[in-house]
């Protein structure tokens, strides 16, 4: 029973990190078909933002709360710059955006190494997040619970924005049918830019969350980006709920397989499971219904 609870909690915790990383990707990939390989580096930028905030402000608790919105802005602005300078001219070649953003990610990583050094830096967790909390006799680390809550809040916020705001309506219209949305008077270009801002900003927030998990270094993003993309693939394009389910399923599965085999075998098994899953649902769990053959 102990093991079951611990493993499920570890899985949910891993899943919540994956979810934070994949949420922004699901938005941008779903709407524009752009594969942003630099998303992981936007996370890294968010993590370093938390580090800089702490250096400037000192107090761990205040800096964490300040760095969340600041990292959202930093990630978002990076995304907008990327979208406006490079990606905008490449929407008809979605596969090539993958390589272009890969180049961006290489440069951002090297920049981080040159600015902050190759060694990892630590961001101190505030006192109210250190140590475990007792629930029903089980001890859960507070920092992991915080990330879980953060992920849930992020999902709710994104869902509300998508469902209730005019921007959300425009985004949903663009995802479902870009050309029809355009002829209805929606500026898809502006919508794209705002989506990219929100998606990349979420990466910044994910980065702040990761500072609670351990020290941060320039390759922080690379370790999450592959799994985050798998979440988007399994979840299906253009749906937040797909990403939520996929992230938690992948997190729990990974935690269980790692527990019963080893971390290295687990990756291979998870890959095989994903390929097997795509045999049944090549488009992911949820898909936008369309009559197109492609």
């Amino acid at each position, binding site marked *: 029973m102990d093991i079951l609870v611990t493993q499920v909690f570890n899985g949910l915790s891993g899943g919540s990190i994956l979810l934070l990383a994949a949420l922004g990707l699901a938005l941008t*990939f779903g709407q524009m*078909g752009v*594969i942003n390989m630099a998303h992981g580096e936007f996370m890294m930028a968010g993590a370093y933002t938390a580090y800089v905030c702490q250096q400037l402000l000192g107090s761990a608790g205040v800096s964490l709360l300040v760095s969340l919105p600041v990292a959202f802005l930093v990630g978002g602005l990076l995304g907008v710059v990327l979208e406006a300078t*490079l990606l905008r*001219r*490449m929407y*008809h*070649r*979605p*596969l*090539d955006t*993958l*390589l*272009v953003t*890969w*180049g*961006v*990610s*290489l*440069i951002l*990583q*090297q920049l981080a*190494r*040159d600015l902050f050094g190759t060694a990892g830096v630590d961001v101190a967790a505030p006192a109210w997040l250190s140590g475990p909390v007792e629930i029903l006799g089980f001890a859960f680390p507070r920092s992991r619970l915080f990330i879980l809550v953060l992920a849930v809040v992020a999902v709710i916020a994104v869902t509300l924005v998508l469902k209730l705001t005019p921007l959300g309506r425009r985004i949903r219209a663009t995802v479902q049918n870009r050309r029809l949305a355009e002829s209805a008077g929606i500026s898809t270009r502006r919508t794209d830019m705002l989506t990219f801002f929100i998606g990349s900003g979420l990466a910044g927030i994910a980065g702040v969350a990761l500072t609670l998990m351990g020290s941060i270094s320039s390759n922080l993003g*690379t370790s999450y980006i*592959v799994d985050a*993309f*798998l979440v*988007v*693939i399994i979840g299906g394009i253009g749906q937040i709920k797909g990403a939520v389910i996929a992230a938690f399923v992948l997190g729990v599965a990974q935690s269980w397989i790692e527990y019963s085999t*080893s*971390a*290295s*075998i687990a*990756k*291979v098994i*998870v*890959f095989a499971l*994903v*390929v097997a899953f*795509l*045999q049944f649902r*090549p488009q992911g769990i949820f898909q936008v219904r369309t009559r197109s*053959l*492609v």
Partner: protein
Amino acid sequence: MSVLRSRYVVGIGFLVAAVLLFAVAPALLSTFRLGLLGKYLCYAMVAVGIGLAWGRGGMLTLGQGVFFGIGAYLMAMHLKLADAGPGAVPDFMALISSEGVPWWWEPFRSGIVTVLAILLLPTLLAVILGQATFRRKVRGAYFAILSQALAAAFAILLIGNPVATGGSTGLNNFKGFFGFSLRDPANRQMLYFIAAGALLVMLVVARQLMVSRFGELLVACRDGEERVRFLGYDPATVKTVAFAVAGTMAGVGGALFVPIVGIISPNDVGVVPSIGLLIGVAIGGRTTLAGPVLGAIAVAWAETSLSEQFPSGWTYAQGLLFMLVVAFLPGGLASLVTWRRRSGTVEPPTASTPEPEPAPAGGVQA
């Protein structure tokens, strides 16, 4: 595409390449530099396959490092076992474990089994992956991400099993190659010649595939897969064959990489090197025959010479190349060459000519 059509030009090209590789390079370069060139040729072999799968078939494969790595590790296992002698345990393995050689290493004591495995295993994996994805119409970005996930899993698997694969250090310190000492400069030169010969053979194969009916179908699958299906062909098979050929080429490149360079580690096969293999192809011109080869050699050469002087400079250069070439010159340098030729001679592009990229660069040419 006029290059591909004219047998005359291609014949001369092969002749020049053969003279350069077999006569000029060995005469001009020291043994060390020749070894470096041999390493670049191994990358070029992978590039030929990528050109076929990505440039011609539209399959953006980010996992060629896996096939490269399988070939390389198979060769490295055989060399380690041969160095140790019959029935003995390789040196690195004896240091960290007392359990002896894993059972799945045993077959690779035999040279023939190793060579067959190098040719077959990467191909087989590519066929399985290709069938599993293309059959279900998993393509484009989904395929790219899956191949990348495969590369990530492969590297983690290698690092996680230090007893069997040397872990993150990988396998190195090889003494012989099928009975020839690797210390002897003459044998090292022989390895270079083997690599050069293998590359030329692959180029011939790739050209034959490109000009054949299969090549036309492959391009058709890239540009309009559903139409190909409606015409009664099976795009999944066509794409799987191209992907498998690319896998074989990468495997052979990896196998020759090991004795030439003397080390194979997860750093050579993971996500980052796998994607790094693409930039040479993109620069040279992904849809052409010679472009990927020349691009891969140029990029590998630039990497060696740049990172000797500025260690961090190469990463910036590589990143910039990815950004600028793919965004602004999707046809690669080859598109500049064809553009000059087209404007020079009056050669109307025929309807059957597959345009490499109906993208901005193509628009400028017209």
